């Protein structure tokens, strides 16, 4: 019900972050999604993460494709410019926007229909290119907005609400992201905010292409027995590889741990990901080990969640293209136009 305006005032003692904003300042409009939709939890996690990161809301650009998940940018960061693009093509628009102004933070929100079917190509190439972004897929195994068709992430053998069995193999976006060179890859669950918020924080602080696949059950069409993306199924099969604390560069490190209990990963911007390992043999900085680990555990029916891989020093497309530090959209004729004298020389060379 986006026509109902949210009241702007808030409780006077609502906590303020380091840039002077309360959590309310990171909210958007009221959600029109179904009650109990996983996506709303993800929106709440995004709000929490941005507030905790001391990001100024208007310095984020939020882009999405088409689908239930792609509607959600309207429900968070109301002070940010948003762009609901076309189905499956958010990555290219995000890339172009990023090229125009490297000083903003880019949040791409998509769904499994948007990114694993029509958008599979653009998803893949955005990962390959290393565009600096936090790309979140809100994954429920179905096309919610068009009423319940299987998506490409639906597991083989899983059942639709009407009892139809899916015979196609699923697309595993996390495995693809790893294979294609994404430098921050995680999986979350909308029902586990404690894990999701630091995952998102790490992604937004990351220097390269960050991808998080968030299982987000669709209460309307895919939350029944036989679904492998339901609340029940995920709770039963969730295998977290680590617990994550995200510590921004300006915060103190609070707790001490015995050696071997944590893996500390410091990112380019100085922020720290402290990963309390739940699996002794899991190394989140080894891409190929992560891929192998995932295949083995997923074959056993486990849904691996957490920060699966990170290259803390990853750089992005701007670095590769050596673009000016000053955003391209701020450059003026003085830096862009060679002028009439140069043109005369060019003319002379063409005679």
């Amino acid at each position: 019900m986006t026509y109902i305006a949210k009241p702007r005032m808030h409780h006077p003692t609502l906590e303020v972050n380091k840039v002077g904003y309360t959590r309310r300042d990171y909210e958007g409009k009221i959600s029109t999604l179904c009650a109990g939709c996983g996506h709303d939890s993800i929106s709440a996690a995004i709000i929490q993460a941005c507030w905790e990161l001391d990001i100024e809301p208007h310095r984020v650009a939020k882009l999405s494709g088409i689908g239930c998940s792609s509607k959600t940018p309207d429900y968070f960061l109301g002070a940010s410019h948003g762009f609901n693009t076309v189905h499956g093509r958010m990555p290219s628009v995000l890339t172009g926007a990023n090229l125009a102004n490297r000083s903003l933070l880019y949040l791409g929100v998509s769904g499994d229909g948007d990114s694993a079917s029509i958008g599979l190509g653009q998803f893949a190439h955005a990962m390959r290119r290393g565009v600096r972004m936090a790309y979140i897929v809100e994954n429920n195994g179905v096309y919610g907005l068009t009423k319940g068709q299987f998506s490409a992430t639906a597991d083989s053998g899983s059942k639709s609400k009407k009892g139809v069995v899916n015979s196609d193999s699923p697309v595993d976006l996390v495995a693809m992201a790893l294979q294609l060179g994404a430098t921050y890859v995680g999986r979350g669950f909308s029902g586990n905010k404690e894990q999701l918020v630091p995952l998102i924080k790490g992604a937004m602080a990351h220097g390269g292409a960050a991808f998080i696949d968030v299982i987000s059950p669709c209460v309307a069409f895919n939350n029944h027995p036989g679904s492998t993306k339901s609340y029940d199924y995920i709770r039963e099969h969730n295998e977290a590889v680590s617990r994550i604390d995200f510590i921004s560069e300006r915060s103190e490190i609070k707790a001490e741990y015995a050696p071997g209990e944590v893996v500390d990963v410091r990112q380019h911007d100085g922020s720290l990901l402290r990963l309390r390992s739940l699996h002794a043999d899991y190394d989140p900085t080894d891409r190929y080990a992560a891929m192998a680990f995932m295949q083995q555990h997923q074959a056993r029916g486990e849904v691996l969640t957490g920060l699966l891989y990170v290259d803390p020093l990853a750089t992005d497309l701007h670095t590769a293209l050596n673009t000016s530090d000053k955003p391209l959209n701020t450059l003026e004729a003085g830096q862009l136009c060679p002028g009439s004298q140069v043109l005369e020389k060019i003319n002379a060379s063409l005679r």
Partner: protein
Amino acid sequence: MNARVPIPTIQAVNDFVVKFANVNGSGSASANELFAKAILRMGVPVSPRNIFPSNIQGLPTWYEVRVTEQGWLGRRGGVDMMVAMNPQTWDADIAEITPGGYLFYDSTRPLPPSKFRDDIHVIGMPLTEICNAVYSDPRQRQLFKNIVYVGALSVLLEIEPEVVEKLFGEQYKGKEKLLASNVQALHLGRDFAKEHLKWPLGIRVRRADRVGDSIFVDGNSAAALGCVYGGATVAAWYPITPSSSVAEAFQKYCGKYRVDPATGQNAYAIVQAEDEIASIGMVVGAGWNGARAFTATSGPGVSLMTEFIGLAYFAEIPVTIINVQRGGPSTGMPTRTQQADVLSCAYASHGDTRHVLLFPEDPHECFEHAACALDLADRLQTPVFLMTDLDIGMNQRLCRPFAWDDAKAYDKGKVMTAEELEAGKDFGRYKDVDGDGIPWRTLPGTHPTKGSYFTRGTTRDPYARYSERGPDYIYNMERLLRKFRTAATLVPQPVVQVAATPTRLGVIYFGSTSPAMQEALHALATQGVHVDAMRLRAFPFPDSVREFIDVHEQVFVVEQNRDAQMRSLLVNELEADPGKLVKVLHYDGTPITARFITGAILGHVGEKVQ
């Protein structure tokens, strides 16, 4: 030849057509270009055209050079001299020579008399034998053979060798060995010709002063340079014939002119995307975020882009698309020219859409219109197409030099600033405040609490709030029409050429038809047929186009596609009387000629007289 039968001889100074038939990938392209440039440097206009196959190596390629003191740069039709270097296409090449014309070929291996004609002058030179005697490396033998024949031609046609040597000097500056060997090859050819061949031929070159300060450049390079001057910072593209060289030229020019001398950083970003959809998506994202962005493609690419074009139209985002048109439909004729995308671009995407099209006539206008397109896209907040074609894009054309006014500022259009927002200025993203149909926009990251909105392809109210209410939708759609009417006043206006005597006949044309049209108008006038001419330079059409049609009894609409697309656009947009608009259609993939236009108009006029 042993024929004593008298054959005609084509005699012409500075007015003839030489066609080179080569195998592509053999190094002939640079030798042939050298030939053309040498004549140019003698002050005689030339108009060369590449005719190349959709392949990389081994298939036939032709280079047709029209030498024209009068400056008629359109394709003429007919061949006065064939330099037949490709056995594969021999028969067709020989058949193309006008009776009385000349055949130049490699006589190393003898050919039976049946391979020749008895109404042409045959000039044989044992090129392979000459080269094999002097060069031992097979690559050198192949490459220098081309320079040797240029040398021979320079004698036959009286092209000054000093001019050719000067060109070598410029091309191989700093590479002394290459310079010396090329000069040597040139004289190898010249010496043989002087000693063994009859020269000069009936067709020959005389120094003149008809080039002036014209430049010689291809349209794609010109468009790319226009994008640099016009302030484009983001380019996303996907390779497709014949537009790839736009992006490549942009890369080259940016490498030279857009690198900050202090930091070494690039004031540009070019991405070769994974397909045309991603290309246009990046352009949309960059345009949304306030950077001037463009893509270059051809017909098939535009087809892929149409969904995004519709989004840019309805969400009102600046986007520049360079369409170097080629033969359609489908994969069509990738290496042949056509003006086949007029309707598909004017009305690209589903629903009620209309887009701004610019029609440059030559490389000079490619430069000017590319920069203009970037301004128009920002001002109008809409897609703008630069409609060129393979003929302009991939051939070097003699044209007026590029010009730039240093006092000219970029027109970034209506972008609201943080100060204006802070001062409380009312901001409705899709609201018409100035009456011209163009709303104000804000860029991401401008103000902490004001000015943000959601961009999407769905319908909305003037404040960008989602709305399915009929009146909101109608307001929006009517405003877009108002904006398009404003566009008609801002785009390059048509150019009218009034005939020497008052006439009831008119002709409308656009783009690469122009050099052939100039020549045709001249030829028609000498035959007493006077026609007023209007060259369209853009769509939407200003009122002057309707007026032009109104004051003439018959208006020929000359274009290079099968379905008379521009004529349809005129009828549809201006409600022009179709009975008045006579189609003149040339669409076989070759550039239109003056002969074709003249023949069509005379034929029609003749019919009417009867």
